[in-house]
């Protein structure tokens, strides 16, 4: 497809399928959007970028109709009356009905009259037509399957089909490739490009320069609620310039260089073994895990005591160990941070204090929640320069990136010997990512073994000493040393997109 050339003066206004002008929005005293612009042409793939707190998610909620705007205007196809279906948010998994069939998921929104017949024939016909626009094979195969049986990327396709079926003109995707394999990513990109040719635009919200460069034509960058770059062709701008526009130092692109001999007084040697593979990791080393979830999760679950039977065998300083439960793993000095904050990390109804000391309580078998915990928690916040109004506030009062840092802060006091990280930078802006990289290197420098699974190859390459690659079936396909690490080698070894 041809990328639309951009920023020519006097463009025909009606060429924009979506035009959001001078959008203002405040929540209480917080002025989140201060005149943001977003203009998307028909059939264009448009990247929306910005740091955490820049106002991206608020702008998305406004254009998708779930928030009202305070000032400004939104026009769709040049008209000011908003069609709620014209902008469709394609969520990765949340927005489907797992127990209902694929056909019903696509067709149900069409039926507004409660006591009408669903009409199976019409339901299947409409769903087949919509899904065939996205993926012929899926439309033939899966119409009467419950959605829960589909793979993640297939669910994404069903959501796209549903959006198209409801008359969507702009699809909004948020980090859509985070868990996709190389071929799935190619399939998704192919679909989006084909839809673009048919006049369906895509708004891509992402922190991943890889997928932005691969897919998008044009970008808009938000900073402090304003559009600091408004429709700039991606071919005309460097990554550094984009990061600078986002208000983050350009050095953020290159995280702190690894290495340096571990300042380990007590050196530790860990050996991980599974049939066919044996890995030896020493204190101070950052071991990356790359590949589709099946492989890395086996290592991670073994290390944190969450899998039974253990897929891997662990030997620490020559002694075989086995963690029967996460609590035992924590007491033996294993820390774990999940990228799935909401499900596996933050205790949302407990104050920040409890969130920080949760691991220490288990490690020390504490019975009393002592007043010293407050001091310890405050120290942890200060050390990681986490901004929170109070340790008694709830986690939801801080941004997503800060919550992720809270999860890391959890492990300062227990001082684990092994730190296991599962996508700790998912959905986090570049500035916060850099801080997390620094924390990882600090932990390693303090003598910790860091085991880190990431789907972002650039960060593995920048931070890790070695990376174990797993292929799509979950088998370890190779160990890449520092000097062999690059995106090509990782892509080849894992089958995943960079």
């Amino acid at each position: 497809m041809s990328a639309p050339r951009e920023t020519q003066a006097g463009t025909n206004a009606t060429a924009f399928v979506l035009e959001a002008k001078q959008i203002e929005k405040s929540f209480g005293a917080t002025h989140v959007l201060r005149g943001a612009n977003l203009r998307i042409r028909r059939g264009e793939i448009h990247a929306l970028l910005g740091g955490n707190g820049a106002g991206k998610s608020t702008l998305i909620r406004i254009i998708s109709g779930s928030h009202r705007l305070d000032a400004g205007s939104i026009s769709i196809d040049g008209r000011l009356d908003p069609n709620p279906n014209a902008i469709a948010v394609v969520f990765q998994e949340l927005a489907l009905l797992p127990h209902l069939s694929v056909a019903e998921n696509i067709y149900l929104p069409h039926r507004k009259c409660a006591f009408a017949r669903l009409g199976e024939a019409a339901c299947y016909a409409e769903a087949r037509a919509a899904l065939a626009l996205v993926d012929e094979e899926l439309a033939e195969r899966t119409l009467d399957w419950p959605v829960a049986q589909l793979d993640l990327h297939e669910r994404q396709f069903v959501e796209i089909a549903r959006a198209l079926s409801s008359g969507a003109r702009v699809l909004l995707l948020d980090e859509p490739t985070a868990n996709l394999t190389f071929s799935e990513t190619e399939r998704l990109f192919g679909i989006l490009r084909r839809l673009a040719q048919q006049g369906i635009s895509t708004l891509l919200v992402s922190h991943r320069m890889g997928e932005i460069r691969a897919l998008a034509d044009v970008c808009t960058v938000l900073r402090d609620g304003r559009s600091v770059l408004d429709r700039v062709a991606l071919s005309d701008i460097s990554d550094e310039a984009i990061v600078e526009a986002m208000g983050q130092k350009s050095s953020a692109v290159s995280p702190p260089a690894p290495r340096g001999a571990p300042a380990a007084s007590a050196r530790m040697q860990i050996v991980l073994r599974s049939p066919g593979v044996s890995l030896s990791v020493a204190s101070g080393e950052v071991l990356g895990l790359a590949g589709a979830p099946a492989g890395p999760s086996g290592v991670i679950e073994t290390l944190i005591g969450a899998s039974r039977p253990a897929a891997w065998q662990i030997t620490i300083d020559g002694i075989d160990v086995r963690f029967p439960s996460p609590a035992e793993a924590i007491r033996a000095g294993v820390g774990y941070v999940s990228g799935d904050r909401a499900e596996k990390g933050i205790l949302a109804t407990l104050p920040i204090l409890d969130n920080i000391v949760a691991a220490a309580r288990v490690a020390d078998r504490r019975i009393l929640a002592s007043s010293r915990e407050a001091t310890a928690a405050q120290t942890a916040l200060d050390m990681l320069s986490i901004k929170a109004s109070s340790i008694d506030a709830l986690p939801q009062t801080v941004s997503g990136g800060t919550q992720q840092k809270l999860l890391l802060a959890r492990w300062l006091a227990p001082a684990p010997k092994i730190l296991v990280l599962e996508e700790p930078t998912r959905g986090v802006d570049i500035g916060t990512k850099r801080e997390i990289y620094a924390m990882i290197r600090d932990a390693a420098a303090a003598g910790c073994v860091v085991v880190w699974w990431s789907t972002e190859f650039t960060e593995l390459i920048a931070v890790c000493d070695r990376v174990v690659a797993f292929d799509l079936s979950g088998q370890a396909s190779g160990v890449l040393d520092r000097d062999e690490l690059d995106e090509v080698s990782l892509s080849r070894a894992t089958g995943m997109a960079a």
Partner: protein
Amino acid sequence: MTEVVIDQRAADRPQPGKRASLVVRLTRIYRTEIAIAMAIVVLLVGISFWSPYVLTWGNLANIAQAAAPLILMSLGVFLVIATSGIDLSVGSTFSLTGMVAGLCFSAALPWPVVCLISLGVGLAVGAINGGLVTVVGLAPFVVTLITYAIGASLSFVITNGHSIAIADPNFWTLNGGEMIPGITNFVLFCALAVIALECVLRKLVVGRWVFAIGSNDKAARLLGIPVHGVRFGVYVASGVAASFASLLSLSYISNSESTAGANLMLQAIAACVIGGASLFGGTGSAIGAMLGAIMITVIQNGVNLIGINSFWQGTVTGAVILVAVLIDRATKVRS
């Protein structure tokens, strides 16, 4: 978080292109229900080794009569459970309906009028439940715990705890009459209710909305499904079903007591669970709920016939629920 459990039967992935024949499709859709029905038969045959009387027409009619109110109540509760809610108030609604009906009969109102007034009890309780759950946004467990407590207490308050014998000579026809010759009314009501509900749940848009909300209520809202309206509706339906069950029972027993519904709430929830409904919502069927209710009644009947102390009934029922849930879990795949 909620775990999503999907029937193994759905894993029998249909072939693309042509659809399977009707019988094959029905067998696939109603696999759980067929299994429960067979389990009921096995149970009856098993009991007949101790007490051959269990398989006589007279006893089977007893079982049907005893099961009818529980079936109706379970259908209402199933609707609520399918939306991932819970209704704890049905038992006390049952009791309160009976007491209100008793008072109306004491006032010598004609029985159809009494029925309409008494159904109003379920309507009112259901509307209060639905309103507090949707408009105010309280948790269904809390809301129906409140209405359960108030309803149970009011059913003592309004007659000061006295039971009322029904003197109306024609009221028995609600339960025992034959609107269609040859079919006793209670059988007719249950059959109609089950068939109608099953059709609504499978074929009408609103039925798919019920499962959609139980499957993922946030997604349902994003899809433009009127989540509040449907939620409100299922609580009202559950209340009315409990009231109707109470009238049917009263028509048979002719004596209203403040404690009439005391055990029914747990039995109705148990019936839904035995019938394949998940308390997380999104699964199950009206036929399953009916079969669950029948199974519970068969167990009670069997315990009586075999001559086991009736105090053991609850233990046996509990054990059967455990077995049913374990079998269910073993035959389903997690995703």
